[in-house]
Structures are given as C-alpha cells and as structure tokens.
C-alpha cells in the first residue's frame, strides 16, 4: 500500500472519529437544560398588554410575534395557563417582538395595537393567531386585517391607517428594544418574574408557573 494511501486512510478515520464523536457527545450533553435561568432581569412591567392583577405574585411576560408559527403553537398552553390562574396571584403580559423574517408581523402588531385602543386587543390577538396560516402567505395582508377587524366592529379606515402609517411603531419598537436588552433571541420567549425560561416544550410552562406559585 502506498504511503499516501495510508496517510489518507488515517486522515479519514481521524476525521470520522472526531466529527461523529463530537456530534453525538455534544448532542447528548446539551439536552438537559434548566427550566429557569438564575439571573433575574429588570423588566418594565408597566408596558405591554396584561391579563391579571398588577400586584400578582407571579408575572409572566411573553415576547411574541403574531406571524411566528412557534408562537401560535404556544398559544393553547398560554391560554390554559391564563385560564387556570385567573386570580390575583398571576399576571400575563404580552409584548411585541416582530422578527424581520416575518414580513407581515409588524403590520399585524400595528393592527392589534389599534384594536387595543378600542378595547379589542385579545379578541384580535386570538383571531390573528387562529388565522395566521391564511394571512401569512398573502403578499399584502392589509385588506384581510381590515375585514377581520370589521368582524369585531372596528373602523375599517382607521385599521388601514394604523397599518399603512405604522401608527404604533414606536410602542412596538420599545418592546423590541426591551426584548433585545433582556436577551430575547427567539420567539416566543417567556420571562417569569424576570427570569428567562428555557423551555424544552410548552408544557414545561405550566410546571414552571405552578412551581413559582407554590413558593
């Protein structure tokens, strides 16, 4: 056998051992994560859309994007959590974190913020998640949003204006800035009493809240 062949076989085998070894070794070791981070971050609880009392013992903040499929997937669990803890001990706060790859999420955020001024935030928020698949693929979802808003008795022209002018961009940008400050790197990201939650699945959210309420 040529010397070069021997060297190349050696290189290939070492490469295989190193690369595949790293894949399996690292892949396993990173799986078990803590539910909550130990670091408590300062979150401005005066902002965002809230359900529950301001004096609640447990405050859950979600940074979410209305066009994000993962946020939609988290919705049923968030709903259950909110429903189950409908007393003064728990507060849920929704904050915007529109990602750039979701091209309609800012329009959706402006729309839901307009709805907020009319007292219809949660109705529109829920409907937007419910119909996400329908409007995400449109080239311009403005008309869809206008019609959707009309179902809740919202003024069509005002919805149009809010979306086209980006009337609530400042508020949305404030949420984005706060999200960036506290280290949001994906949506949805949850913070429970200022601690970032590292959820392996959304059901963990229920556990994390139940534990915090017990404390």
């Amino acid at each position, binding site marked *: *056998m*040529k010397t*070069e*062949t021997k060297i*190349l*076989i050696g*290189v*290939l085998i070492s*490469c*295989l051992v190193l*690369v*595949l070894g*790293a*894949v*399996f070794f*690292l*892949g396993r070791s*990173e*799986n078990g994560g803590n539910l909550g981070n130990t670091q408590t971050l300062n979150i401005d609880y005066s902002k965002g859309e809230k359900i529950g009392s301001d004096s609640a013992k447990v405050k859950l903040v979600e940074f979410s*994007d209305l066009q*994000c*499929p*993962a*946020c939609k*997937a*988290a919705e049923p669990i968030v709903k259950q959590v909110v429903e189950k803890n409908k007393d003064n001990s728990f507060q849920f706060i929704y904050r915007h974190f529109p*990602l750039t*790859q*979701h091209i309609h999420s800012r329009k959706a955020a402006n729309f839901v913020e307009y709805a907020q001024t009319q007292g219809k935030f949660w109705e529109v928020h829920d409907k937007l998640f419910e119909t996400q698949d329908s409007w995400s693929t449109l080239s311009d979802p403005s008309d869809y949003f206008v019609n959707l808003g009309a179902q809740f008795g919202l003024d069509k022209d005002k919805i149009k204006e809010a979306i086209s002018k980006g009337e609530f961009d400042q508020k949305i940008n404030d949420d984005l800035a706060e999200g960036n400050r506290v280290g*949001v*790197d*994906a*949506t*949805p*990201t949850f913070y429970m009493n200022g601690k970032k939650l*590292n*959820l*392996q*699945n*959304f059901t963990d959210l229920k556990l994390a809240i139940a534990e915090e309420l017990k404390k």
Partner: protein
Amino acid sequence: MSNRIIFILSLLGLIVTAFLAFEYIQTGPIVCPITGAGCELVRKSSYSKILGIDLPYFGILFYIAVATITIWLIQKSDKLVSGLRLLVSIIGFAFGVYLTFLEAFVIHAWCIWCLTSFIISGFIFLICIEEFRRKSI
C-alpha cells in the same frame, strides 16, 4: 491532484453534514430564532427525513463513500472504480438539486448549511466528471 481535491472536499462536506446532524438531534424548544431561521424551517418541514432518517445522515454517508472511493483510486487507478465514484457523485448532486428545489419552491426557506453541502457536492461532481473523462481518453 484532482483526487486529492475531491478527498479534501469530501472531508469538508463531512464536517458540514455532521454539523447539520448535530443541529438535528438538538431537542430544543419550538421557536422562531432571530438568526438561522431558514435552517429551523427546513428542519421542521416534512422533507427533513426520508424513511424516518434525518437527511444529514445520508449526506455523511455520501461523503464517506466519496472519500473512501477516492483513497482507493489514489492507491490504484481504475476506470471502473472511477465510474463508480462518478455514479455516487451524480446521486449526491442530484439529491442536492432536489433538496435545493424544495427549499426554493416548497419550503420557501434557505438553510445555509444545506446549501454549503450542495455546493461542495457540485464541485465534487464536476471534478469526478473531469477525472472520469481523462481516464476514458
């Protein structure tokens, strides 16, 4: 010389696909990340597995096969083996074309690592053709 380039390219491809396999076995939460969103979308799509096996494993097998055959050819030049390597490279590249087509027109998302592997397989394919042609003359 060409054989050595193919060997190096297949090692590079091996590293890229191994990294992808690593990404696949991460059981992270379902999220939309700020960066690398394309990879997540591709990974979550129904096209990321064949017969229940994650696609990067096929990539790893492909590059191991190319590297092994190339070592064989460096040891002993053989037209039949060169043809076998060309066949393997065609399969690998064609698969890459299919996956890139899916990314562009079906999944509508780009995964940078998948594309890197596709480009590497493209180069391997071109050099394999050239090698095979030279052997045939």
